Structures are given as structure tokens and as C-alpha cells.
């Protein structure tokens, strides 16, 4: 994948050096350095970086004025403010310019990387957050309530295996509307059968196990997505009916250019995995 190209606009040689040392890896490269606001504007339009890391205090103009002049000519510019100064006046001025990303120095590499990733992404942070948080919450509630136990532990990962190797049964629900994506629920045949048996209060057939997985996926997505739509302004997601896959060996490929979070629920009857993906376009 192409690296994210970053322009640093900061008059401090020390700050420039720190960013140059810590940021570049196989996902990021520094494609330019500017030590003043004017140089920042000139370099922005020559280099056309994916994202700008902008200081505020600079000799000729402050970083917000520099950002304003860039945004005036390129409203799609992605700018992350990284400044030792951060107060309500500055964050308000930045927000009014349309800049969502404001970090205070010193920032950890992890925080900076996360912010840059969100800044270059075409998904607004609040949409992705609402999507994954509400689905996760709805998944946790549903599993605990239907198994009538608190003895479940949940762990999450933003870098899951590609492809996703199924344990036996998976339910896929497509996400459409203002954003596209999908949700996958996966469990072994035994776990799915135990779950269905618990709900039906009798021994579950293989068909019951499949129906149970579809039920979990439908309820978790229905509840999670409707709550996310209420929370995130402008987001309007819809879900497709669940498709079920089951078999001895099957693996689902990751979607291209997507954000992903997987949550694993370890329960007394076995583990369930919920993978939540959202495409960038």
C-alpha cells in the first residue's frame, strides 16, 4: 500500500527532528519540511501531501492562519495541529476553520499515528466511533443477557487476521447507506449449538445452531446500528439480511481500504467473534 505522505510545518528544528525520527515507518513518510507559515503554504501546493502536521507558533504567521490559507485553496486539505499551546480559544478557532485534529505537544507516537490515520481517512471519527462503539456495546449486552451470566470477557483488536478463518459458522451482515461495510459474527458449530440450545431450552439441531447465529447477528446489528445512527449526526446506515456460511474450512478476505475492529467474547459456552468493518469511501 502507498505510504501516507506528511508535510511538517514547524519552526522548531528540534520538533522537526523528533517527528522525522519517530514517524516514518512502512505506513508513513515525511515528504517535506517547512519552517515558516509562508514556506508551509508554498510547499503544500508543490508537494500535495496527504496530511500536514502544523505547529501554531511560528515567526511570520501562526499555524491557524497558515491552515486557513491552505484550506482556502484546497478545502480537502487534511491538517493536524500539533502545538504546545492548546486552549479553548485556539481549539475553537481551529474548529471554525474546519480542522478537527488538535494535539498538544508532547504527543505520543501512538496518539499521533491514530490521529493521522483518522485525518486521512474519509470516515469521520465520530461516525466510526459511533459505529464500532455501539455495535460492541450491543454485542456485549446481548451475549451477557442471553447467556444470563456476567462471566464473559471481551477483548478487541484493530489488526485482525487477514483472511478471517471461520471456526465453523459465520453470519455476514452487509452495511449500506451513508457508509458501506459489514459485520461478521463467527463461532464454532459446538458453541453456536450450545447457544441455540440455551435459548430454545432443548437440544439444538444443526439448523437451530445456524438460526441462532443469524439471530445474534441480526439483533446485535439492528440495535447497534440504530443507536449509532441516533448518536452520529449525518450517519444513516442500513443493514442487509444475514447470510450464513458454514463448513469445515472457509476464510473470508478483508475488505480493501477499511477500518476494522474485532471483538472476541469468551463465554462459558465458548467464544464468539464479532468483526466490524467500514469502507473508507
Amino acid at each position, binding site marked *: 500500500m502507498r505510504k501516507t505522505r506528511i508535510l511538517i510545518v514547524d519552526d522548531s528544528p528540534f520538533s522537526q527532528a523528533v517527528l522525522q525520527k519517530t514517524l516514518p515507518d512502512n505506513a508513513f513518510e515525511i515528504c517535506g519540511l517547512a519552517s515558516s507559515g509562508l514556506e508551509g503554504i508554498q510547499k503544500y501546493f508543490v508537494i500535495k501531501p496527504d496530511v500536514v502536521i502544523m505547529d501554531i507558533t511560528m515567526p511570520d504567521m501562526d499555524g491557524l492562519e497558515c491552515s486557513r490559507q491552505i484550506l482556502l485553496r484546497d478545502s480537502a486539505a487534511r491538517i493536524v495541529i500539533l502545538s504546545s499551546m492548546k486552549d479553548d480559544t485556539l481549539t475553537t478557532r481551529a474548529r471554525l476553520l474546519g480542522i478537527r485534529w488538535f494535539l498538544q505537544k508532547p504527543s505520543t507516537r501512538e496518539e499521533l499515528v491514530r490521529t493521522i490515520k483518522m485525518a486521512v481517512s474519509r470516515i469521520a471519527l465520530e461516525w466510526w466511533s459511533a459505529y464500532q462503539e455501539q455495535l460492541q456495546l450491543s454485542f456485549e449486552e446481548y451475549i451477557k443477557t442471553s447467556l444470563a451470566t456476567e462471566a464473559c470477557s471481551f477483548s478487541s483488536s484493530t489488526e485482525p487476521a487477514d483472511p478471517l478463518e471461520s471456526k465453523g459458522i459465520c453470519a455476514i451482515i*452487509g452495511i449500506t447507506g451513508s457508509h458501506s461495510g459489514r459485520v461478521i459474527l463467527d463461532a464454532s458449530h459446538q458453541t453456536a449449538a450450545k447457544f441455540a440450545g440455551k435459548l430454545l431450552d432443548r437440544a439444538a439441531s444443526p439448523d437451530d445452531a445456524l438460526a441462532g447465529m443469524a439471530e445474534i447477528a441480526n439483533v446485535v446489528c439492528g440495535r447497534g446500528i440504530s443507536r449509532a445512527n441516533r448518536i452520529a449526526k449525518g450517519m444513516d446506515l442500513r443493514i*442487509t439480511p444475514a*447470510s450464513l*456460511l458454514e463448513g*469445515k*474450512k*472457509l*476464510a473470508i*478476505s478483508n475488505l480493501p481500504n477499511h477500518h476494522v475492529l474485532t471483538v472476541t467474547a469468551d463465554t462459558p459456552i465458548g467464544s464468539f467473534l464479532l468483526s466490524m468493518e467500514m469502507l473508507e469511501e
Partner: protein
Amino acid sequence: MDARFINPVIDAFREILPQLGFADIQRGKLSMGSNSVESFGVTVIIGMTKDLRGSVAYNMSEATAMTIASTMMGGMPVNQFDELPQSAISELVNMVTANSAIRFEQMGMQVDISPPSLVVGNDFRARLLQEKFLVIEMLADGNLIQLNLGLESAQAK
């Protein structure tokens, strides 16, 4: 399952596949499937919602998938069904389904489609929304792609 759903999908297939480098497009058998779609090795599932709900499962063997991907990539040799040929197949499914969706809209049915999920494996099957579904065999330069349509109109629910 409504027979009106068949033609838009076939027409979409006939329109898109030539654009991807296939000269001869034929329709094979048309039948009714029940219970589940037995995978040929590569199955791509794409969901639909709004006026039409359900999913379409595109089914093909891994060898066919590699041949198709190679044609789509201008004859580039494909010896392994890895990331690049997989994304070519997903793209094909996306294009055919999006084109079908436009045709459904022309019939007065608004349809939203989900991203395609590409599944690879052996001895596995897919269940669609309904017990009974339509099975359409399509051949692109002799390569068999089986389309399984598990769709219903939302009003019918």
C-alpha cells in the same frame, strides 16, 4: 422468489463481462435451489436492502476464479488465488451487482448493495435469506459462474 429478478441480473452480467475482456457470454441452466448453496471453492456474497432484500451468492471454482482474474488483468498470469486476483473477483461481483441494482431501480425498486464478501475454502456452504432461491448459470468464455439469487421484495414481508 419473483422471476422478475432474473433478467436484470443476467442483463447486468451480459453488459459488464464484455467490458472486462470476455467475448462470449452465455446463459446456462436456470433452476431452483433449496436450503443452501454448496460452494465450488470461491463464493462471493453481496447483500441487498431497501425495496429488495436478501443476497446474491456468486459461486465458482478456484481455477475459474484465477482464469477470470487473469482475463480481467489483461492476460496477466495468475498462479495463485491471492490478494490481487481476489480483489479482481470482488470487483467483478461489485460491478455486476451494482449494474443489476440500477436495472432494479429502472423497474421502480430502489436497492442498496453492501460490499462483497469473498469466501475461499472447501466443503462449505452458504445460506441465503430464503429456503428456496434462484440458480442461474452464466458462462463467460466457457468459465462457469453460478449466480444464486435469494431476494424478496421488502413489501412482501
